[in-house]
């Protein structure tokens, strides 16, 4: 499924390509819409880190604005932030009315953040460890296991014809004979670890190698697979 876009490569070169990617963006948690207060606070921040406010893209989080009147002046807010070196790229949370107003002002609504509370814990919750999924049996031909938003850990072999997929890393305490796709939502830092590499296919963040492209010197070895400058690297795990 991830590889489908690559299959178009053989046809005539398209003018562009659409790809998913992950970015770290600054989120501006708005608590009140008092222009003067915002300006004062911004000036202070800019004094602390002038280089930071140089066309910095920001997402405006309206979670703290749920109680305020619905009619937020997004055009005014946009101008204000632009004038201070920030480029609003979208909003998050907010009431349906606020979201509609944001859309009218040309600001897309981004998916809500996972942390439900708006106190100080929010920031830490976003950095919290991802959920891993542990499969404590072998994965047989035809079975597919996916660990969304985390690592997949398999205690046993992954058979030929089986597929293991994770948004994060994949750890296989056994032989990998099937397909393993790590970082399927674009995490280029994801890795695959296995006790014996006999895979049909390994992929990280969409970069893949099929069985034929795995050197015989790498076969049946304990290995980790990761991306280095967009290239899949297979490294033996020796102790």
């Amino acid at each position: 499924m991830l590889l489908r876009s690559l299959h178009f490569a053989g046809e005539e070169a398209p003018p562009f390509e659409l790809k998913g990617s992950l970015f770290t963006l600054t989120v501006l948690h708005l608590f009140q819409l008092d222009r003067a207060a915002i300006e004062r606070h911004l000036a202070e921040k800019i004094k602390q880190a002038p280089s930071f406010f140089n066309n910095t893209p920001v997402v405006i989080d309206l979670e703290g604005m749920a109680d305020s009147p619905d009619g937020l002046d997004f055009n005014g807010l946009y101008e204000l932030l632009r004038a201070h070196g920030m480029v609003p790229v979208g909003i998050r949370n907010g009431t349906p009315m606020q979201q509609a107003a944001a859309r009218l002002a040309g600001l897309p609504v981004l998916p809500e953040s996972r942390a439900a509370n708006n106190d100080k814990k929010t920031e830490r919750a976003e950095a919290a460890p991802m959920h891993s999924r542990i499969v404590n049996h072998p994965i047989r031909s035809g079975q597919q296991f996916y660990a969304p938003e985390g690592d997949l850990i398999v205690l046993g072999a992954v058979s030929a014809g089986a597929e293991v997929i994770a948004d994060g890393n994949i750890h296989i305490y056994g032989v990998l004979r099937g397909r393993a796709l790590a970082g399927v939502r674009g995490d280029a830092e994801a890795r695959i670890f296995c006790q014996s590499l006999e895979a049909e296919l390994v992929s990280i963040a969409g970069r893949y190698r099929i069985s034929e492209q795995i050197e015989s010197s790498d076969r049946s070895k304990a290995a980790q697979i990761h991306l280095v400058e967009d290239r899949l690297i297979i490294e033996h795990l020796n102790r």
Partner: protein
Amino acid sequence: MATIIVVTSGKGGVGKTTTSASFATGLAQRGYRTVVIDFDVGLRNLDLIMGCERRVVYDFVNVINNEANLNQALIRDKRVENLYILPASQTRDKEALTKEGVERVLNELKVGFDYIVCDSPAGIERGALMALYFADQALVVTNPEVSSVRDSDRILGILASRSLRAEQGDEPVKEHLVLARYAPERADRGDMLSVDDVLEILGIPLLGVIPESQTVLQSSNAGVPVILEDSSEAGAAYSDLVDRFLGKSLPHRFISTQKKGFLQRLFGGS
């Protein structure tokens, strides 16, 4: 309460029905009340292997549809006491196997029997799924050949995820490997996968290795479960398999090449 055992493989022609017939016969020979059910609706074979094809009046689907009761459909084996056969219908298809119907028949059988052996059709569709759905244990029949091993691997995955035990989160279906049509000399030459190769891929306990043998074909055509051919290697291997299933610890025979003695070579071994 009876134990339900499915004999399955994924791939066709690997020896499921041969194994079902001999396994059920072996259990009955040892005094357990045993019934063997043919789940291959539309491609009825078990009755031929068991040699009771001329005594089929009603079948499994008739019982599911309440067109006959179990006593009318069950065929008592003439050679071995305690052994009954529930034949498949030849004129229907697998859609006739409803989950409720199969469950009702199995529950009725559970009362009077020690072991219920379900002979699965090939494939992973309805017939095969119904044969394994209610199983407590599974004999997975494999030949020493890559496609057969992969299909068995697939079936093991289905046992682990789509059986009633899996759905209810009970103790998983107990898996046993039966490696059939094994020829040690060909495995030694590398023409076939070896016992160890198959065990390494599938990773389930080995219940028995059945050697490739002419006797299997002959006895199939004669309608005699090969386990009744005491003098044949395949018959002996099935006997060992049944004993192992019942808890005896026996070494695996017929898995290594033996040098034939002079007399054996002269007269030919069986």
